[in-house]
């Protein structure tokens, strides 16, 4: 008798297809709903430029860029979160929670308000993300990145970065500070075309590399000794994964600011949908994009004509879930 093993491939395939379909629906919804409501059919027609001029303009000129920015940044944040969770072996260790988003924002704000530097915001955000990651993992040192201690040091780093951002904002004219405010809580309003292009390129490259190293990455879920004995060069793999996570976070923050909790929730949900044993990279990215677009859509429509920044929506919707993880009487292991 040979035991029959169900391969995880089929289930994951189904999950990915379902998520891709859902993402498509959310995209169409995000394109058609707004101050001007356009029917889904007209929206699709407008995409190809064959609807009435008004719809064409609204969909293609006003909404498409925002949806693309949301899609890319949501996917990038979720992918970065998924990677960082795996590498730190800590499901709470996402860039937002350990202060990397805040640092990227601080650096980007520095270049926006022009404190002595004139580098483009995306590059500055990258530098910020890299700095904070180095500090967070450096501080963890011998004590390791597992457990809550690592996370709380991250909160400290985030607090410092947040305070530095405030310092810079308090030193510039009140108008500039007000303009930067929605961006510091995470919003799709402040996006610049150049940043979105960079993010798209970065996401594509990172995703290709990740597909290539997905097997060694998977072994990092097992103990180090096992990963090594399976032939994984763990230092190289870990460094590459971390670098990609930093790249994705930095580029995404340059587009949308520190939109919290997507990087935590999307991989979390993806993990429960997909079969265990594999890091749910694609599913995380799809879910991240779905979360971002949905949250932005809510932010745009809930109190219309007022617009609530997407970062506030994700914080309000996501925090209760995080609290639930933390306060459950017997929490699952942090790995």
């Amino acid at each position, binding site marked *: *008798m*040979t*035991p029959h*093993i*169900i*391969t*995880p*491939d089929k289930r994951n395939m189904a999950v990915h297809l379902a998520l891709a379909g859902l993402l498509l629906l959310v995209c169409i919804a995000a394109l058609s709903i707004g101050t001007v409501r356009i029917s889904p059919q007209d929206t699709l027609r407008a995409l190809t430029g064959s609807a009435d001029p008004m719809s064409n303009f609204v969909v293609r000129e006003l909404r498409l860029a925002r949806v693309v920015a949301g899609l890319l940044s949501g996917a990038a944040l979720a992918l970065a979160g998924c990677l960082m969770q795996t590498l730190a072996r800590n499901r709470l260790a996402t860039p937002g929670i350990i202060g990397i988003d805040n640092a990227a924002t601080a650096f980007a704000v520095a270049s926006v308000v022009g404190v002595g530097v004139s580098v483009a915001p995306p590059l500055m955000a990258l530098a910020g993300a890299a700095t904070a990651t180095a500090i967070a993992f450096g501080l963890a040192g011998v004590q390791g990145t597992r457990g809550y201690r690592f996370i709380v040091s991250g909160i400290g780093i985030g607090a410092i970065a947040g305070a530095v951002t405030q310092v810079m904002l308090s030193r510039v004219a009140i108008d500039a500070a007000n303009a930067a405010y929605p961006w510091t809580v995470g919003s799709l309003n402040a996006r610049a075309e150049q940043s979105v292009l960079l993010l798209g390129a970065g996401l594509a490259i990172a995703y290709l590399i990740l597909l*290539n190293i997905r*097997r*060694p990455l*998977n*072994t990092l*879920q*097992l*103990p*180090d*000794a*096992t990963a*090594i*004995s*399976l*032939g*994984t*060069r763990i230092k190289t793999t870990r460094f590459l994964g971390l670098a990609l996570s930093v790249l994705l976070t930095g580029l995404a923050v340059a587009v949308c600011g520190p939109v919290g909790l997507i990087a935590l929730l999307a991989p979390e949900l993806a993990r429960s949908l997909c*079969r*265990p*044993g594999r890091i749910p990279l694609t599913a995380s990215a799809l879910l991240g994009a779905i979360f971002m677009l949905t949250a932005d859509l809510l932010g745009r429509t809930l109190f219309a004509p007022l617009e609530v920044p997407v970062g506030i929506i994700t914080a309000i919707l996501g925090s209760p879930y995080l609290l639930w993880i933390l306060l459950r009487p017997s929490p*699952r*292991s942090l*790995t």
Partner: protein
Amino acid sequence: MSHTDTATLAAERITLAHQKYIVAENLDLRLPTGRVTAIVGPNGCGKSTLLNGLARIHVPKRGAVLLDGKDIHRLPSREVARKLALLPQDNSAPEGLTVADLVRFGRQPHQGWMKPWSEEDQRTCDRAIQAANMSDLSGRALETLSGGQRQRAWIAMAVAQRTPLLLLDEPTSALDLGHQIEVFELIRELSRQGKTIAMVVHDLASACRYADHMVAMKQGCIIGQGAPHELVTPALVRELYGVSCDLIHDPATGSPVLVNVRRQH
């Protein structure tokens, strides 16, 4: 599942250290091919460090570990992984991972970018699960298994790696007697199929019973090696653990058994 290919593993004058603190110095060791070697010694004597050194987890400060005569740290890691499998002491796995999922990891060194999951990979996994007597449990999540079953699942993963060499770090620690026997008999069976096996064993009695070759360590030095019935003497036991004992021979197997173990006076 027979292994036509074999591989040799040897340590040549290796010095192992944790940061600056030297754990073992100038060790020479050659694993007898096709046999079960047990590394024994008191707590903190460096036996696990030695095993991790052999498995290239630990990089020696001086000396070299030779796999088929070549420095193990100069060989590509995946090539080594096709010849040598390790069952580490820490065997935590992501929650929800099933036995089958875990065993699939064992095929990793044989897969590549252009070589997706194949029929042969699947057959090897199925056979590894059968060999570990886990067929009925292959769909179960690891955290729902008993300690002995979980340990057998991990051994199945190492078996799926299809390596001529298998290293195990305290494979029976924290298992009760029944589960210990279960694991040791699986190890014997794998050895019969031609694998070269080395394991760190805490319990001297089990080492005597299940190993062909024993390596005794104390304070980072190898103080003796040989077949259990030649190596294990009351004098050795006193030197290793500081206790006195008498020896008799197991009427069924002939392996040495310690009796009347007492504090040394």
